[in-house]
């Protein structure tokens, strides 16, 4: 019976590696797709209202459709729809920043910064193999507090609070990258479709928050 133990462990490791590989592959493709839809919306000069409608659409897909399709091939199509909509919604934001004198530098720095943060955090989890599942409750509470503060600041309009919210979101989303990668590594997340959406949302939020912070400090 003991002879079977190594083969079970090897099978489990192979399964984890497969989920990890599929997640990173789907994430790479959806990021490219998202960049294309963002470029399309920039060219079309869509309004902020359309951007918000895209966010509503993406939320509806994540809420109602993704849980029902994540276990099937249709889930991949839903991931593309979600990332495409969110990418399309970025158009007005990117056009706003690119209209600044150093706008292209700000966007490029935010993009590069997001990529470096993601690679460093993923590399940290994959190297140390630590289990960050204990962070789940802490991260979700942090996210809820950040959203409540964001709702309040829509009506208060305090610039310093807006900056603090962006900084908090970057930290919470960085925590989510550690958490989700660790979940995949330790077999807590076996569905690469769900893992891709989770990592994509973390990257999306880090990028937009970093762009906001750099836009405030770097606006000439």
């Amino acid at each position: 019976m003991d002879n079977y133990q190594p083969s079970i462990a090897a099978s489990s490791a192979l399964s984890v590696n497969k989920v990890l590989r599929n997640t990173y592959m789907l994430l790479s493709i959806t990021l490219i797709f998202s960049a294309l839809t963002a470029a399309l919306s920039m060219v079309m000069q869509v309004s902020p209202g359309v951007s918000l409608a895209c966010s509503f659409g993406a939320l509806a897909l994540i809420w109602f459709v993704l849980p029902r399709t994540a276990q099937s091939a249709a889930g991949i199509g839903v991931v593309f729809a979600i990332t495409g909509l969110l990418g399309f919604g970025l158009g007005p934001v990117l056009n706003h920043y690119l209209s600044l004198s150093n706008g292209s530098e700000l966007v490029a720095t935010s993009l590069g910064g997001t990529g470096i943060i993601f690679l460093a955090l993923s590399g940290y989890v994959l190297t140390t193999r630590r289990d960050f599942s204990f962070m789940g409750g802490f991260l979700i509470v942090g996210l809820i507090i950040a959203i409540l503060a964001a709702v309040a600041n829509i009506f208060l309009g305090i610039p310093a609070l807006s900056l603090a919210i962006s900084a908090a979101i970057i930290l919470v989303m960085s925590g989510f990258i550690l958490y989700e990668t660790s979940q995949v590594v330790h077999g807590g997340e076996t569905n690469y479709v769900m893992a891709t959406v989770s990592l994509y949302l973390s990257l999306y939020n880090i990028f937009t928050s970093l762009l906001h912070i750099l836009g405030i400090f770097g606006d000439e």
Partner: protein
Amino acid sequence: MDWLKISTAIFLILLLVFLLPRAKHMLSNSPKAEKGDWQAVLLPLIGVVGFIVLLVWMVSK
């Protein structure tokens, strides 16, 4: 108050409605941290903060 601000607030409140059941589930099912776990989290997060400070310095100089 323009409609875009109100729509954004509605969007964020819907997001909260979406997150609350998950929050309850995660709070009750998350394992407790062991000794050294939080230190392992702080190290990369401090790195992220330092990196953002560097980026801010780069774009503002």
